[in-house]
């Protein structure tokens, strides 16, 4: 699978890497110019999350975004048009360093997403790890999100820039 993809060619910019670690695992990494506390907030506060998550080129927008960020808490994202919904339960919540949640919109046995935030010299290395129930499930998910991921992370960069002054 050609899932390993690197984005922006200029060395100044932070790169998004996507790699299939095993038959059932996919890992995405990206560094952000900001402390882990701020990056974590951008992932867990709905009012911040909705400002960067949806790639602008998709022509979709978040209709609603609910996040009860605690172990056992639920999240639900609903998109316009057609009210496409994504939802699941938080399995792990460690402020500023680790999040894990289930993806239940496809029924039982959906993938589990773990996101870690590792701060180093004022920057944060973000690692998104997704574990699928089977090789077939990950194969079926495809790699269509690679470009979208680059776009959405660039939007998070912008948000972090604007937050820079206030946090």
């Amino acid at each position: 699978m050609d899932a390993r993809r690197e984005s922006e060619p200029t060395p100044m910019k932070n790169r998004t890497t996507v790699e299939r670690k095993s038959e059932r695992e996919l890992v995405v990494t990206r560094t952000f110019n900001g402390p882990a506390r701020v990056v974590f907030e951008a992932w867990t506060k709905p009012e911040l999350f909705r400002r960067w998550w949806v790639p602008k080129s998709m022509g979709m927008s978040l209709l609603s975004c609910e996040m009860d960020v605690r172990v056992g808490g639920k999240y639900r994202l609903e998109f316009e048009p057609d009210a496409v919904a994504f939802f699941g339960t938080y399995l792990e919540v460690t402020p500023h360093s680790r999040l894990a949640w289930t993806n239940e919109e496809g029924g039982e046995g959906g993938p589990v997403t773990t996101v870690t935030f590792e701060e180093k010299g004022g920057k944060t290395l973000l690692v998104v790890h997704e574990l699928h129930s089977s090789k077939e499930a990950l194969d079926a998910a495809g790699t269509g999100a690679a470009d979208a991921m680059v776009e959405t992370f660039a939007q998070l960069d912008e948000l972090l820039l604007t937050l820079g002054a206030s946090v």
Partner: protein
Amino acid sequence: MWCILNRMVQYTAGRLDASFSALSDVTRRGVLEQLGRGDASITDLANKFHMTLTGMKKHVGVLEQAGLITTEKVGRVRTCKPGLRRLDEEAAWIERYRQLWDARFDELDKVVEELKRKEKVDGRKKRE
């Protein structure tokens, strides 16, 4: 997160498929233009485009499925109106494609400039 984005990408791709395929027919494009000038019933449209009612119903169904028009039945008349989709994503797709060509031609400009400069220098050398 990856899986959500993937689903969203698949979903948007599906919508592009639907709209481009809806636009791939001269009658359906005509219907869209017609509705831009005002709402019309399926019967009106069938007459306008010299088609059977059944044929026009099919076209209207395709356009409605793609979100390009909406229909509303009042009594025995089904009225068609333009949908709320402005084809922004479709236009953006075409624009990205166009930019690829722009970038390519910009590169071609550079090559042509370089060749011209080289020819000038070579010409001068020959004369010397």
